[in-house]
């Protein structure tokens, strides 16, 4: 009899607790995200503003309650551009219970690709290497790949070039990052893109590019496509200016026009090359703070709010970091709006559904972010910029690469 009474009391108490819990508003959640990148070591000049962009946007999302009372906790760790350190950081993040991961370099993204697959964790890298997507389902490039950017640039050249088939040289970083888009550009040429690739130059730690520039000039090269970091491009532009081989306007006869994709350009290039950067053409999918756009205004306000200096505030890699964080926040927001739990699987589904009417329009890019199971390159649209009076200015309207679609 006594036992029955005890059971009844327990039952009533449990029911009361459950009822009270149901009446309570859901407790605020904290969602963990990890970012491993080069804050020191090679490419830290891009990594530092990138990390600040990520950090600031997550702070902004928390401060503006973009996810209601829920909070984002983004853990940022330096990997000094070393893949083994990135792997260690990633494993530590997993132990901390991250639901989404932000990676950085091409080498580490390729190196950890299998880990992302095994863990089934959506990953957004700062590397736009097309090879990141091969045999992978969980890597989402924020913008079109280096290959897409380079082929887009080549299409622009074929459209604007006057005369016979334009002769092109490629000036690339001696690494997986640099070599990534070379084969794709060659495939585009085989598919009918009307350019002649005269030479692919893998640069070294050059103090003087005279030999290379003279050689390219003697081979009749008219356009040099750069895919590396800013410092070697700056040295080359200075040498080209000295040797009087740099075109003063697009496609100038007998001279070379220099063009580059995402990581070659930005204010750092102007800082390093000075006057020699004039008439350098550069393409990316981001808006720039040198242009009067909503994205630029919001970026500058955010930088001011979180006490960033002018250099960070105006860096395109700060924009880059903000944009990646925007995608992460948007995926979480949409998952939450559907009443689903914020777990890797649901975030993965939500990212793949980001297309058509559900495309995401961040203000800091020149086009929408679209993902699906067969397309994991976010913004496909590109904008061409040109250095004019020491500032990058947009030239022409936005475009997408036709040949890149053909070779995929």
């Amino acid at each position, binding site marked *: 009899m006594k036992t029955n009474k005890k059971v009844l009391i327990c039952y009533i108490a449990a029911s009361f607790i459950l009822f009270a819990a149901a009446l309570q508003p859901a407790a605020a959640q904290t969602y963990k995200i990890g970012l491993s990148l080069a804050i020191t070591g090679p490419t830290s000049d891009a990594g530092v503003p990138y990390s600040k962009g990520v950090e600031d946007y997550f702070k902004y999302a928390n401060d503006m309650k973009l996810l209601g009372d829920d909070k984002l906790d983004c853990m940022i760790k330096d990997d000094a551009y070393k893949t083994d350190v990135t792997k260690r950081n990633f494993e530590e993040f997993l132990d901390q219970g991250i639901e989404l991961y932000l990676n950085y370099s091409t080498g580490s993204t390729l190196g950890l690709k299998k880990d992302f697959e095994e863990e089934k964790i959506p990953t957004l890298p700062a590397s736009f290497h097309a090879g990141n997507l091969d045999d992978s389902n969980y890597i989402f490039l924020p913008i079109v790949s280096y290959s897409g950017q380079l082929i887009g640039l080549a299409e622009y050249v074929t459209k604007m070039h006057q005369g016979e088939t334009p002769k092109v040289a490629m000036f690339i970083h001696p690494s997986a990052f640099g070599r990534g888009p070379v084969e794709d550009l060659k495939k585009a040429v085989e598919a009918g893109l009307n350019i002649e690739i005269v030479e692919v130059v893998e640069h070294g730690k050059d103090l003087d590019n005279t030999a290379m520039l003279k050689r390219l000039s003697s081979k009749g090269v008219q356009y040099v496509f750069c895919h590396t970091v800013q410092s070697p491009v*700056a040295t080359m532009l200075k040498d080209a200016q000295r040797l009087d081989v740099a075109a003063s306007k697009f496609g100038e006869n007998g001279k070379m026009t220099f063009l580059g994709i995402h990581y070659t350009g930005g204010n750092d290039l102007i800082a390093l090359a000075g006057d020699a950067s004039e008439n350098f053409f550069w393409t990316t999918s981001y808006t720039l703070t040198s242009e009067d756009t909503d994205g630029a205004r919001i970026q500058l306000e955010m930088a001011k709010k979180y006490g960033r200096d002018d250099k960070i505030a105006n860096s395109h890699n700060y924009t880059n970091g903000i944009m990646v964080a925007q995608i992460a926040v948007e995926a979480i927001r949409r998952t939450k709006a559907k009443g689903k739990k914020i777990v890797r699987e649901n975030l993965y589904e939500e990212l793949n559904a980001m297309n058509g009417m559900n495309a995401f329009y961040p203000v800091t890019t020149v086009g929408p972010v679209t993902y699906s199971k067969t397309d994991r390159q976010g913004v496909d649209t590109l904008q061409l910029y040109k250095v004019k009076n020491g500032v990058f200015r947009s030239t022409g309207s936005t475009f997408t690469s036709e040949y890149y679609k053909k070779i995929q």
Partner: protein
Amino acid sequence: MSYFLQLVVSGIVVGSIYALSALGFVLIYKSSRVINLAHGQIIASGCFITYALNVWVGIPIYLAFVLSLIITFFLAMGVERLFLRRLIGEPIISVIMVTIGLMSILDGIIYLTPFGAENFSFPEFLPTTPIMMGDVSISWTQLVGVIITALLIGGFSWFFKKTTIGIAKRAVADDQLAAMSIGVSVPKVFGLAWATAGLTAAAAGGIIGNITGLNFDTLHAVGITVFPVVILGGLDSILGAVVAGIIMGLIQQFAGGYLDGNWGLNSTAEVLPYIILLIILLIKPHGLFGTHEIERV
């Protein structure tokens, strides 16, 4: 012909800068038989100090450059006093390990400053129009670099041959025990070797920074890039550093000018110096002008 001449001029320019950068290695090795693996970081530090004095403090560039030489002179002397002096008499490998540690410490300090992760450029202080010699061009920056290199190398050669301290340094390099027995202060000589190496590193940093812009990765990598120059010239020879620097500069330019892009070759300018280095070392293991020590056992 102008193509060939342009490559020669560029090779000599680059080679001179290599020679100046290599000089720091030689000065330290010559007196203490130590290879300073943190030399690239000292080159970068010298460059950053010049920039900071010029742009942030507002000191005219030439004065900033001279001040940076003086500051780096004393900094390097301090480093030697703090970390290396107590290792006199210890195995050389221990001292080299300390220089690796020093490299990490300097990296860490530089990453704490804006120079670690930002790019800068010296304000233009020389004419941007190049000097033309027929069809051959040389920029003012390069010319000034070559002149400074020539002055410093000439100055150090004279210093070692004609001054008491210079002769003392050579005596220490030849035989520390014998030098001590005639009253030469070996610790002081070591300190001075580090200090003068710091001075030349700052000079090289200023010149390279003017050419490439101020990027930490690019600047400290010079320390490794010039290592084949030091080995080729003979670790303890100033003349060797100059000759090897110019040989390397010329090889790089000719490889870039005549080999790269032809017959499917690429980046030979990066590889060829090492191949030639290996061949020369097979014939002359002590480098072109290095001291050939005979040990009797």
